C-alpha cells in the first residue's frame, strides 16, 4: 500500500452523518499528529516532564459550533500532576462567620473599632507588620522576575513570581501569630530579600506549602488588620473596588461578598458601607485591608469622584426569595 493510500479514510455509502463526522475527526487527528510537540508553559514544566502530559485542545470560532468549525486552533497546556497536588493553592476558600471572626482574625485591646468616635484611631500601618515586608518582597521579586527569599529570622518565604506562588512551610497558627504582631525595629532590620541560588530554585518542596501570592497576601493582611483599616485610607473619603476579588480562593471574612457587591457599584466611605449593609464596621475595615493589599481597593482621589453620589441600594423585588436561597446555600435552616 502506498503512503497516499495509507492516509485515505473510507466512508461507506450511503454516507451517514455520524460516520462522516467520525471520518473527519480521524482526518483531523492525523493531520495534526506531526505538529504535536511538548512545550512548557509553566516554570515547572521543563523539569517535570515525567509527571506531565501535554494536551492539545481544539476550539471552534464560536462557542462550540460542532457542525461547522470554520477555524481550528489548538491550545497546548501541560497537565502537571504536581500542580494539582498543591492543595493550599487550589482548595476552596475558608468562609468565616461573625462568630468565628474574633478567634480566627484576632482581637484588639485598648480600642473599640466599631465605635464611630474611635474610627480616627482604628487604623494600622501595614509596613509595621509581616504584610508590609511581604509586599516589598513581592514587588522586588516581580520587578526583577527572580525567585527570591524573604529572610526574617523565622522560616524563609520563597517567592516564585513567574507562577504567582509563594512557598512557606509553617503551621497556619504560627503564620497567624507572626502576621498579627507588629515587627519591632530589631527584627525589621534582620528582614532581607535575597535572590534564591539557581540550584535551590528547583529543589523538591512540600506541595501543600505552596500558596497563590494573592491568597497569601489577603490572609496575612486580614491578620495584621484585626478589624482595622490601613493607614493609607482616609476614613472620611470614599473608597473604590476595582473588581470582585476571587473569593473561592481567598479567606472570606464576614459579609465580604455583600461589601464587594456594594462597592463595585460605586465608591463609598467605609462607615457608609457599614451603615447601608447594617454590619459592624470591623468587617468593612478588614475587607478593605485585604482588598487594598491586593491593589483591588483604594481611595478615590479625584474631587469629581467624591462628589458623585453612589447609587441608592434598591431592594430586589424577589428579596424574600433571594434571602431564602442564600440561607440554604449558607447551610442555615430558616
Amino acid at each position, binding site marked *: 500500500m502506498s503512503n497516499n493510500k495509507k492516509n485515505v479514510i473510507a466512508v461507506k455509502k450511503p454516507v451517514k452523518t455520524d460516520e462522516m463526522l467520525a471520518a473527519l475527526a480521524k482526518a483531523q487527528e492525523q493531520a495534526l499528529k506531526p505538529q504535536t510537540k511538548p512545550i512548557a508553559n509553566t516554570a515547572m514544566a521543563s523539569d517535570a516532564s515525567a509527571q506531565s502530559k501535554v494536551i492539545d485542545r481544539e476550539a471552534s470560532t464560536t462557542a462550540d459550533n460542532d457542525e461547522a468549525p470554520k477555524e481550528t486552533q489548538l491550545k497546548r497546556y501541560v497537565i502537571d500532576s504536581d500542580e494539582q497536588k498543591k492543595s493550599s493553592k487550589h482548595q476552596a476558600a475558608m468562609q468565616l462567620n461573625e462568630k468565628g471572626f474574633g478567634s480566627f482574625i484576632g482581637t484588639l485591646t485598648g480600642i473599640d473599632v466599631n465605635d464611630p468616635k474611635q474610627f480616627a484611631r482604628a487604623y494600622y500601618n501595614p509596613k509595621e507588620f509581616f504584610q508590609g515586608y511581604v509586599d516589598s518582597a513581592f514587588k522586588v521579586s516581580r520587578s526583577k522576575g527572580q525567585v527570591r527569599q524573604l529572610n526574617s529570622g523565622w522560616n524563609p518565604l520563597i517567592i516564585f513570581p513567574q507562577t504567582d506562588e509563594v512557598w512557606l512551610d509553617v503551621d497556619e497558627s504560627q503564620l497567624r501569630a507572626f502576621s498579627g504582631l507588629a515587627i519591632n525595629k530589631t527584627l525589621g532590620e534582620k528582614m532581607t530579600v535575597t535572590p534564591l541560588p539557581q540550584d535551590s530554585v528547583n529543589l523538591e518542596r512540600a506541595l501543600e506549602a505552596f500558596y497563590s501570592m494573592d491568597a497569601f497576601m489577603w490572609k496575612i493582611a486580614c491578620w495584621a488588620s484585626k478589624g482595622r483599616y490601613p493607614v493609607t485610607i482616609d476614613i472620611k473619603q470614599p473608597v473604590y473596588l476595582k473588581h470582585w476579588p476571587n473569593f473561592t480562593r481567598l479567606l*472570606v471574612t464576614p459579609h465580604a461578598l455583600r461589601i464587594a457587591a456594594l462597592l463595585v457599584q460605586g465608591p463609598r466611605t467605609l462607615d457608609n458601607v457599614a451603615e447601608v449593609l447594617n454590619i459592624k464596621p470591623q468587617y468593612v475595615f478588614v475587607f478593605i485591608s485585604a482588598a487594598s493589599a491586593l491593589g483591588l481597593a483604594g481611595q478615590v482621589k479625584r474631587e469629581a469622584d467624591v462628589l458623585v453620589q453612589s447609587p441608592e441600594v434598591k431592594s430586589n423585588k424577589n428579596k424574600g426569595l433571594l434571602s431564602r436561597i442564600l440561607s440554604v446555600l449558607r447551610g442555615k435552616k430558616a
Partner: protein
Amino acid sequence: MSQYKIIFTGPVGAGKTTAINSISDVPPIKTDASASDMTKFRKSSTTVAMDYGVMNLPGGEKLHLYGTPGQERFDFMWDILITGGIGLILLLDNTRADPFQDMRFFLDTFDKFVSDTAVAIGVTQMDLSAKPTIEDYHVQLQGMGLKPPVFAVDARVKSDVSLLVQALLYTLDPGLEG
C-alpha cells in the same frame, strides 16, 4: 406557586452538569447522549437538551437549576430555558483555546437576560491551565463595561459553586441578609 430558576450556561465541558449536581438537593436529571461529533474529544457524553436540578427552599418552595446544552446547535433551547430566570451562571473552561471568545459569545447571546438580571462567571480547570488569569478576565470584561464576579471554580466542590451563586444573588441585591 411561582417557578424560580437559575440558569447555568457555558461551552461544552465547562462543568455545568457537575456544578448543578454540586448544589442540587436531588440527583440531577440529565439528558446526555454519547458524543458522536467533535465533542467526543472532550468527553464521552454530552448534554443534548438540558440538565435539571432542584434546591428545596424553606416553606416548600423550590429553586430550579437549569443547565443549557453547551453546543450551539441546541441554542433554540436557550430562550426557552431563561424565561423567568433570576440570574445567569456562566461557566468557562480555561483549557479551551480561546475562553475570552467563549465568554463574549455567551454574554452577547444572553445580553438581554443579563441586563435584566445579573451574571456571575466561574472559570473551571484553572489547575490545568493557569492562563488566562482571573485578572485577565476582568480586563476583558471592563472593556465590555461589565464588572461581574469572576471566580476560579472547581465545579465538583459545593462551596465553590455555592459562593458563585451567592455572589450572583448579592449582585442582584447587596442588602440581602442570608
